[in-house]
């Protein structure tokens, strides 16, 4: 089994890659969701104002 805390010189490179991938994907997914919700709120607000 892969020794998580004992990878010698490769520790930084492997976990750096995985962490950067998960961080980028997580932030990007959250940003996409937030952008959609923002548009949704704007339209909801305009509908509420009109009615």
């Amino acid at each position: 089994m892969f020794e998580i805390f004992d990878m010698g010189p490769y520790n930084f490179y492997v976990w750096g890659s995985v962490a950067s991938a998960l961080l980028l994907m997580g932030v990007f997914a959250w940003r996409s969701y937030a952008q959609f919700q923002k548009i949704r709120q704007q339209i909801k607000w305009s509908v509420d104002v009109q009615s």
Partner: protein
Amino acid sequence: MFRFFHQFLAVKTFDTLLAWAAPVLGALSFALLAVGLSWGLLFAPSDYQQLDAFRIIYVHVPSAFLSLFIYSVMAVCALMALVFHIKIFDYWARGSASVGAAFTFLALLTGALWGKPMWGTWWVWDARLTSELVLLFIYLGIILLRNALEQANQPQTLAQILTLVGFVNIPIIHFSVNWWFTLHQGATLSKFAKPSMHPDMLWPLLICIAGFMFYYFAVAALQARRFIWQKHAADKWLKERV
């Protein structure tokens, strides 16, 4: 029959489909990535040459594969939008662009993190690396052009043409390792007929690629919905959905 298929090309139906698909695909992606990354990072055997450094493959190869796959999807969508003027293809192409740019950046970043311990350098002006960098610039150009056209209230025709022109780079990236002498290794995924990886290493890689693929569909669905809602904010059907 034509009418049956035609309804799926309507923006309203497409939005309904995306609303249903985004959370389902997102959950599938999360599950597959949890299994694939855990398997690949914790249980797959070490490589006899690269030792544990080879495990970068579980994020690098899916990112690189997706960067090419997403652009190919964008090119098909741009062609359909340009020739048949079907709006949903343009929304999907636009929603895909930023996801593709993110995966291209990730492929370059993880490639650099793999290159340093294996090649002794973060970057070389190698055919594969350089053509992948050009792909990132093409993605960014398309995103900027689309935003500029949107702000100028112009149709997205120029962005669709640019997407099709940029497609010439995709076969160059794919075959660069065959056409030129490169530091980068040959294709990993085209060796299924005679796999060069042990199944214990290959299966988690395939699961990770599936997880990245579902992530793309889920996030591109969110992005496409954002553009649909921006464009159709005044439509009655959309106001009923908020």
